[in-house]
């Protein structure tokens, strides 16, 4: 096994103050860490808002927060979780991991990368500053339908501008990821030897590049309607309120894949490592990912069946179709574990949590794809259950799988295993307690986005269960935070490759030097480290 020695770039180690260094860094690893810190912060904020929502709904006829505040709280909860947490958290993992996995020294455009990151915190502040203005924060839901969104106070404008800024951040970030993966791969790493996480980031980037600007155009129209008397969404002036829904979902259905694909990528890194087998059907997985990306643009109107204004059979059929590549992936994952020697460390637990929860989320999504069923379930708590099974049970579990998995690489220390197990079980039980009852509530007709319900509805017991579950989820953050603090109090002691993993990020030190690699193994397959171990090379 020969290896390629990389000449050290000169003059990269200018001494600077640590703070200045973090503020001006263009190093993909530092930017990745900044992304992770800030998105986890917004995860916390969004989580607190969720607890307020659940407290309000715990009992019937409650007036804990009041209608107006309730609308702001649930809107900001969803907006923070989607736009400030899930979407940028993948940029965080991608930033840290993608260049390392393809054996590059950095992203293709490090300064643009810094710009992408530095748009996120100001956008978050802007969006939340809505709570300080007259009329409060945005309260039209994360979907901001017209006519509702045309008529609210200035908090709505702040929301619009914030989402546009975040869109710019992810659009230029997407171009950066694409060029990085097209152009900076290590010698020998063909596209079909790229780690799966990179593939999912690549397809995600394509979706972001093409879908996010469409959302920006819709937001610009909404802004014009609100501030310059425009009539885009106003039938009185010849406009069309459904237009917003069409353009919004043209973005937001692909966006649900933006929110899940990198999570699937993480799972596909973790499952093989902890099953001690290669990913079953690498190419099928890649094509399924592309298929999801492509089909993702053809199903948006399944969110709009009940408007009656869309071609229902077509969009229903296409939505069933998109279940097919998703099913392929299920087989990839199950086949990977089949007869593997599985070990159940924390990353693997979270990955398995993802598998089981996402399966439920996919099935109840497919239910709603059947037009007649959707007419009954639309805008009920069933949809809330669905999105949480895919977004929390899927994406958030994948975030934690990724954190436990890459923590040793990023910070050179390992998170305590016992605490990890505790977090997982608390979160898993809390999650199902919080969200499974929502299926039943939805079937029983409880509408979503209501501030309270009467005690004659009979919904109280299930709602109380759900609230208890939500607080259990919050409790599960305690072992996590303790584990992080405990890890930071210990010295960096992790070897290059603590998990016997397969991909290039584990070739270099933990954490890696500024320039990432002193040398690289030759890449002959999608598992260069496995090859190196087989041939007895490595460090």
């Amino acid at each position, binding site marked *: 096994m020969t290896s390629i020695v990389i*000449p050290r770039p000169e003059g*990269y180690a200018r001494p600077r103050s640590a703070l200045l260094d973090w503020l001006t860094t263009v190093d993909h690893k530092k930017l990745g860490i900044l992304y992770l810190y800030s998105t986890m912060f917004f995860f916390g904020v969004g989580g607190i808002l969720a607890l307020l929502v659940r407290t309000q709904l715990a009992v019937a006829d409650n007036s804990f927060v009041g209608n107006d505040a309730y609308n702001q709280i649930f809107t900001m909860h969803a907006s923070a979780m989607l736009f400030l947490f899930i979407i940028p958290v993948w940029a965080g993992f991608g930033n840290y991991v993608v260049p390392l996995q393809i054996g590059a020294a950095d992203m293709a455009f490090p300064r643009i990368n810094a710009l992408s990151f530095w748009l996120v915190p100001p956008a978050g502040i802007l969006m939340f500053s809505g709570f300080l203005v007259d009329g409060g924060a945005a309260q039209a839901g994360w979907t901001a339908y017209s006519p509702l969104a045309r008529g609210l106070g200035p908090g709505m404008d702040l929301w619009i501008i914030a989402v546009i800024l975040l869109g710019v951040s992810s659009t*230029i970030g997407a171009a950066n990821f694409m060029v990085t993966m097209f152009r900076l*791969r290590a010698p020998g790493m063909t596209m079909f030897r790229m780690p799966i996480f990179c593939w999912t980031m690549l397809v995600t980037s394509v979706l972001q590049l093409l879908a996010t*600007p469409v959302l920006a155009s819709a937001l610009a129209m909404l802004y014009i309607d609100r501030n310059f*008397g425009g*009539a*885009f969404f106003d039938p009185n002036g010849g406009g069309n309120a459904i237009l917003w829904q069409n353009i919004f979902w043209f973005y937001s259905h692909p966006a649900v894949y933006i929110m899940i694909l990198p999570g699937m990528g993480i799972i596909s890194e973790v499952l093989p490592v902890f099953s001690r087998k290669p990913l079953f059907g690498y190419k099928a997985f890649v094509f399924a990912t592309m298929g999801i990306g492509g089909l993702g643009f053809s199903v948006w109107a399944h969110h709009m069946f009940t408007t009656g204004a869309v071609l229902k059979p077509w969009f229903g059929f296409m939505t069933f179709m998109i279940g097919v590549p998703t099913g392929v992936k299920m087989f990839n994952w199950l086949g990977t574990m089949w007869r593997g020697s599985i070990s159940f460390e924390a990353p693997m637990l979270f990955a398995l949590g993802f598998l089981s929860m996402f399966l439920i989320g996919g099935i109840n999504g497919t239910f709603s794809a059947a037009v007649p069923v959707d007419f009954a379930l639309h805008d009920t708590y069933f949809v809330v259950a669905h999105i949480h099974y895919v977004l929390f049970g899927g994406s958030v579990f994948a975030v934690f799988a990724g954190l436990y998995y890459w923590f040793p690489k990023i910070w050179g220390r390992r998170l305590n295993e016992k605490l990890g197990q505790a977090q997982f079980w608390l979160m898993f039980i809390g999650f199902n307690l919080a969200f499974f009852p929502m299926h039943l509530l939805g079937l029983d007709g409880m509408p979503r986005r209501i501030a309270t319900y009467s005690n004659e509805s009979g919904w109280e017991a299930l709602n109380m269960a759900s609230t208890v579950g939500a607080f259990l989820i919050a409790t599960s953050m305690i072992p996590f935070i303790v584990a992080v603090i405990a890890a930071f109090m210990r010295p960096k002691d992790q070897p290059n490759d603590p998990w016997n993993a397969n991909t290039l990020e584990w070739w270099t030190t933990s954490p890696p030097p500024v*320039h990432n690699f002193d040398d690289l193994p030759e890449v002959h397959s999608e598992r260069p480290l496995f090859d190196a171990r087989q041939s007895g090379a490595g460090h």
Partner: protein
Amino acid sequence: MAAHGIATQHKQGLSNGMLGFILFLASEVMFFGGLFAAYFIARADATEWPPENMLTAEQIARGVKLEVEFALPFIATILLVLSSVTIQFGVLAIRRGDRTALIRWLMVTIVLGLVFLTAQMYDYSQLHFRAGDTVYGTTFYTLTGFHGAHVAGGVIFMGVMLARSMAGQFSAASHEAVEACSFYWHFVDVVWIALFTVLYIVK
């Protein structure tokens, strides 16, 4: 770049910067795609276009008329198309290493861009409707306004190129930014041709 080029496999063809720029333009296409979609849907919904029947009594009393001038925008269109040719002459010049000619062509193109913007502003001032006057006014000003902003951006882009070439930068071997600038300008031009066609010609 040395630090980031270590693992580069593809040395020839489009540079990384150019590839990134083309991807950026693709996102711009999608942005305008959204605006065009809104326009087409508004037209498809309308029983007549321009939707005079949507005007309120108040708007009619205010003298709102939903119609556009043709002559001036038509001339502006010709100038903008011409400017795509002139910037291309600049690119061809610097490919030969002729910086003086690049400077000259950039100047010409900038002037054409500024004339276009002035014509647009003048045209706006002559129209008898505002952005709030039915979806016709909204789509008209939104589409042409965003396009105008892109023209302005292009003029600034060319201004930077001009300053850099006057400072002695760019040569036959290295003038990537100029190429990118010309791509951008052609893009702005193509968007305008599409806009002009749907706003002024297609009935």
